[in-house]
């Protein structure tokens, strides 16, 4: 049977371009590359003895980081029952979980946790390694993650998010979580055919809870929009036409000088009867 598969895939591997086609494409690519050369050139640092000596402890640290990082990376693909699974859950996930401090980050992280557990169940089923004990443990963890998501959502509410934009962002986060759970449900339904499963039930409950949270957030968005509309209406009233008469600015009263003479710069000419005949 293996040979039959190999034959199919080997046959497909012989689907290639001709030498001429490859050359033509290469020429086109070179033309494109020359029209758009690499604009950045990495700077070459001068290497001195000091740098090399200084680099040694750093190299040791780098090597350690590399080894630890390698183990941590390798553990990411492990499944319950594998040697490295404990590194995945106790080290990698705890570190990443500790970084998620805001309620938003917590919702996103708990969603990731639930998704990881669902993927593990699915992978274990396909490898025929899912025992009732592991299933129970993973079901509890999925339930725990779903519960933590709801708690983090409560914390989001408590943060005093009042604008409709804030609630819209929350809604996007919850929708993301809901979509992950729904994907997981689809995957598990394909695997767990027939019969009742506590695992499916817990994922289904989480989806229901998140649907409720989405509806609640939608109501809060409408409420926030309504409140903003009312507030704007009140503000318009406050800056409407004035009700009191504006006061005239005070003028300083100056006492008149009674002896002061009004200067007559251009006195009227004296009357001369000769000028005007009777």
């Amino acid at each position: 049977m293996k040979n039959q598969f190999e034959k199919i895939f080997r046959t497909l591997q012989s689907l290639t371009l001709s030498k001429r086609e490859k050359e033509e494409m290469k020429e086109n690519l070179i033309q494109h590359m020359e029209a758009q050369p690499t604009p950045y050139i990495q700077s070459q640092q001068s290497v001195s003895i000091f740098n090399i000596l200084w680099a040694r402890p750093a190299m040791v640290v780098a090597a350690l980081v590399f080894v630890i990082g390698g183990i941590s990376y390798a553990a990411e693909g492990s499944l319950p029952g594998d040697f490295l699974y404990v590194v995945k859950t106790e080290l990698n996930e705890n570190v990443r979980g500790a970084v998620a401090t805001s309620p938003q980050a917590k919702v996103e992280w708990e969603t990731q946790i639930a998704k990881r557990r669902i993927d593990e169940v699915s992978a274990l089923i396909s490898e025929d390694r899912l025992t009732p004990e592991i299933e129970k443990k993973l079901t509890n963890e999925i339930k725990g993650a779903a519960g933590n998501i709801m708690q983090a959502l409560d914390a989001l509410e408590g943060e005093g998010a009042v604008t409709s934009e804030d609630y819209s962002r929350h809604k996007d986060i919850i929708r993301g979580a809901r979509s992950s759970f729904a994907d997981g449900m689809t995957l598990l339904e394909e695997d767990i055919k027939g019969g009742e499963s506590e695992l499916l039930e817990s994922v289904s409950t989480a989806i229901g809870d998140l649907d409720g949270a989405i509806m609640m957030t939608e109501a809060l968005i409408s409420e926030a929009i309504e409140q903003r509309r009312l507030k704007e209406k009140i503000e318009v009233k406050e800056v409407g036409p004035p009700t009191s008469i504006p006061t005239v600015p005070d003028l300083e009263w100056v006492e008149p000088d009674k002896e002061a003479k009004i200067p007559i710069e251009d006195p009227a000419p004296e009357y001369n009867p000769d000028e005007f005949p009777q």
Partner: protein
Amino acid sequence: MTQKKFIVLYEKNVDAVFRFCLIKVSDREKAKDLAQEAFMRVWDQVSSGKKIENPRAFLFKVARNLIIDSYRKKKSLSLDELSEGGFDPVDSTFSAEKTTDMQIAIDLIQKLDEGYKEILTLRFVEGLEPREIAEILDMSPNVVSVRIHRGIDQLKKLMKI
């Protein structure tokens, strides 16, 4: 990445990217254009200073996105329709026996569900690791492994073995 290194990347992967496109679009000329475009797009990213961790995986990812875009623009004709119109994805220089084998292999792969088709092609024809496939398809490696198993089951049924 220098131009010289990029050309090495091209020479090592051009057949694989072309094949991946051909299995998806069933049109040799279109597959050539898509593969060419994928290399140019990746170069554009490289030349703009983008750091690419795994150029091979990134190349397949770009090619896949281009295929999806081309589907959106115009739904591609199926392999049967193309064959009826005188189209043959197989190289005309192949022997009669090889052409028959190739046609059988292509027919089987085409009959797989879309999700299994590309995963099995990437895994067994191109030899990519589940981790790399996960990167290309934006999935977790575990889901890729599950799909590989299911794809093989479906292929077994199609081959009646």
